[in-house]
């Protein structure tokens, strides 16, 4: 139990620090770069012609944008920690609503990408790990060397050139049907599989060399039962640990892939916010991405503690 609590607290602290860092960064940007946030909010709410100085002052008061720097900073932090994200400076819509909408698109893309990478990496990784150094292993090693050197936008552009432009099989961009999801999901999944194939292979090869596995073989177990019961279960811990790293690749890839395929997800929302200097959008998307990342890592930590056979000293065996 002790380990579990420690793992969860440290991730919760990390989540809090992420919120603090995003809020501080956006605050610095608002205060250092030229431009008046109150004026920008006023223009977003009404329109450029009808804004009067009185309205700007009104908004400055309402939004807590006046007073000494430190007071404004703490107000800004408090608002962020209450998830009061405000409205977009570009179209005046509430950032929170838009985020939920965008998040669902990214989740769909991520789910499909993970599925693709799972379907590729698990069979190929197991086949490589069972016979290290042989043909399949060397092939998958070469393949993942090549694929890790390909940025996701290069893979994506290649797919668009071949499948959308040359062969006309699939649409190049958009988000209306399942057909639109094939190319982005493949791009994301192949990039992820490059890494996870090797992780699975190493984990399987490691388990294979362990004593309990050799013992199970000596008992006369063989084939699928041996691999599933003694192999996969024990190989799962390193694979899970690296799932956290995988997730970082997934989020990094999402920004690039969503931009390339015009997929209306969270990553593209963040990029649009950055390019338009739409601070509330940047803040909202940054917070959500950071929290998702920390939450996934927390889940991975908890699963690892739960799967790990080693216990704390002094704790009764189950």
């Amino acid at each position: 139990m002790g380990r579990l609590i420690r793992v969860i607290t440290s991730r919760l602290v990390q989540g809090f620090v992420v919120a603090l860092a995003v809020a501080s960064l956006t605050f610095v940007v608002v205060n250092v770069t030229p431009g008046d946030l109150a004026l920008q909010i006023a223009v977003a709410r009404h329109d450029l012609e009808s804004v009067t100085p009185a309205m700007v002052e009104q908004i400055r008061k309402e939004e807590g944008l006046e007073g000494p720097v430190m007071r404004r900073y703490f107000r800004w932090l408090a608002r962020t920690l209450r998830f009061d994200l405000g409205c977009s400076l570009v179209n005046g819509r509430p950032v929170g609503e838009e985020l939920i909408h965008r998040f669902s698109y990214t989740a769909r893309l991520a789910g499909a990408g993970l599925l693709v990478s799972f379907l590729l990496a698990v069979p190929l990784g197991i086949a490589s790990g069972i016979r290290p150094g042989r043909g399949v292993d060397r092939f998958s090693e070469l393949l993942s060397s090549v694929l890790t050197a390909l940025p996701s936008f290069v893979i994506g552009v290649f797919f668009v050139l071949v499948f959308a432009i040359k062969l006309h099989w699939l649409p190049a961009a958009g988000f209306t049907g399942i057909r639109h999801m094939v190319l982005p999901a493949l791009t994301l999944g192949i990039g992820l599989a490059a890494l996870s194939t090797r992780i699975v292979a190493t984990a399987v090869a490691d388990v294979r060399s362990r004593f309990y596995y050799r013992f199970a073989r000596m008992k006369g177990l063989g084939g699928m039962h041996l691999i599933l019961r003694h192999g996969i279960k024990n190989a799962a811990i390193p694979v899970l640990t690296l799932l956290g790293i995988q997730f970082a690749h997934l989020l990094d890839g999402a920004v690039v892939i969503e931009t390339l395929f015009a997929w209306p997800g969270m990553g593209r929302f963040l990029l649009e916010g950055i390019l338009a200097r739409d601070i509330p959008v940047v803040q909202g998307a940054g917070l959500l991405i950071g929290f998702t990342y920390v939450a996934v890592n927390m889940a991975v930590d908890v699963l690892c503690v739960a799967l790990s056979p080693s216990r704390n000293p002094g704790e009764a065996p189950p």
Partner: protein
Amino acid sequence: MSRSRSILSRNIRLSTGLTLISVVVALSASGPLLEHRALDQNLDQRLKAPSVQMPFGTDALGRNILARLASGGVNSLVLSSLCVTASLIIGVLLGLTSGWLTGSLLDKSLLRLVDIAMAFPGLLLALLLAGLLGGGPAVVAVALIFTGWTDYFRLARSLTVVGRTAPYVEAGRLSGFSGFFLLRRYILPKVLPHLSVLATLGMGKTILYISSLGFLGIGLAPPKPEWGAMIAESLPYMRQAPHAIIAPAGAIFLTILGFYLTGQALARNAGRQGAA
């Protein structure tokens, strides 16, 4: 048998990697000579397919793609070497100090700082920093160093924590040698082979980040050529002129592959030395 085979495959990796890096460096070395051609627009020559005069054809503004590749290569290579060197120096100095003073306040605060830098996926962090602070080479460099130093820090720290309790280090400490001397004489040589691996792989990763940032429209400002930005600029013309995309995509791929293969070969070498 299997051993000689693994050495062979390591040498193939190393030689392929080094060849690719040399080709890219040689191409980029001609970049400064081709600088004006990389920016010269010629609207009669838009989106021309590769020919003898223009080995990689021209882009949407009739600019010579080969010259742009070379010129973009200089920018990417110089910027990423700077970032890797700076991250390495910062990471190693802090890592050695932190590992030597394990458990101290400094060590604890540095570990917290690493936690913060790693609480966000690398490219997104660089995107957020570089994008909000306004782009340009200096800002991109700061963002990449901030995301990059943690790897070197963690490696140097963990090797120092292990190394400081070794008998010969203890003996040195009892003989009255300073911590600085012991770190430099006994710990640093253990860290260096691993660092060369990490730095080579780091070059590949940094080039990947720079080109991704360029592709997303953040980074080195146009019209200065950048490989990722060249792809983004040519996307609307991918039907008429796929070569304008394939050329920079190939350059990115081969450069990163070169660094990764070299790094992997060095990693096996370091692993073998460590095992021996």
